[in-house]
């Protein structure tokens, strides 16, 4: 085994010709950003951010900046926008990623949807083919039924960007 690996001729390369080194693509990096018309996001660390919608009420209150709200039958829906930026260090300019989203919590006090897709524990495709280095805006909605007791609600949405082959 050692002899075979050390002999380039054994792999079809000419001995003495410099070997081309192909850079290994690093993991795509996700950055979650405040959208131009969205609520303010607090960036916590690379790839992680937090969105606090503040106090929300079915009958009272107004929307905070960057948010909109509407009442549907039996539930309050708060909407805002955010942006995802994907960088792919070491990848070619034409590289693309598939972006999925899922919920890491199982709270039934509310529902969360992105671009109209209600999130659950299973990863769902958010963007099928997103160019590396690009960013895109998405609409996030939190739906709170009137039956949910008053108090704090919270969820964590996980995004995964995988390089397309």
């Amino acid at each position, binding site marked *: *085994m050692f002899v*075979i690996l050390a002999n380039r001729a054994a792999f079809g390369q000419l001995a003495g010709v410099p070997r081309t080194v192909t850079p*290994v*693509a*690093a*993991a*795509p*990096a*996700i*950055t*979650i950003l405040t959208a131009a018309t969205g609520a303010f*996001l607090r960036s*916590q660390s690379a*790839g*992680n*951010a*937090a*969105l*606090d*919608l*503040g*106090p*929300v*009420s*079915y*009958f*009272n*209150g107004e929307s905070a900046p960057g948010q909109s709200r509407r009442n549907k039958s039996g539930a*309050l829906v*708060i909407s805002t926008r*955010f942006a*995802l930026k*994907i960088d792919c260090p070491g990848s070619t300019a034409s590289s693309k990623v598939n972006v999925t989203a899922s919920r*890491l919590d199982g709270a039934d*006090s*509310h529902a*969360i949807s992105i671009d109209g897709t209600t999130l659950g524990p299973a990863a769902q495709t958010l963007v099928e083919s997103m160019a590396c280095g690009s960013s895109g805006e998405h609409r*996030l909605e*939190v739906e*709170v039924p*009137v*039956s*949910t*007791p*008053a*108090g*704090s*609600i*919270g*969820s*964590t*949405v*996980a*995004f*995964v*960007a*995988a*390089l397309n082959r």
Partner: protein
Amino acid sequence: MKNRLILTSVLSVFALSAAANAQSGSGTLGVSATVQGSINLTFVTNSSGIAVTGTGTSAASLPFGNVSMFGGAVPSNVTKTVNSTSFDLATPFNVKVDVANSGSTTFTLTATLAAADAVNTWTLATTNISDAADHILTAAGEFGAAVPYTLKLTVPASEAAGAISNTINFTVVGA
């Protein structure tokens, strides 16, 4: 042949390992909010009452129009009763109270005339509210039900002709 198979397997493992470690990245977005309980009161036209201006909202009005003790037209769905020294105008309207994100199961409904009226008598259901004090209309109201209340205005015959106007403030407290 045996050696080649072994080498192929080793390289494949390396390739899969690289894909698993370097081909995907992740991020998380924490989403939080503070849900506040809320109660909503709306006035709704009663099928036997005059049309409530602003029905379905929490700021409405009951326009009786032009009325007189003797003769004249009585507005539709208004009951006029002529007494010896006064006349009454009465019409029902509905009050609907809804609740969201609250543990309250009933509510207390209080009515308060904005300005005390020593001349006319304002009666809601059977409660005289003319003194502008707080008057409890119900101590255990049912959420989601449109409950009819009849407003009766008693105008003395001795009162000079002119406009009569006042405001009744309704307050709901969940229990």
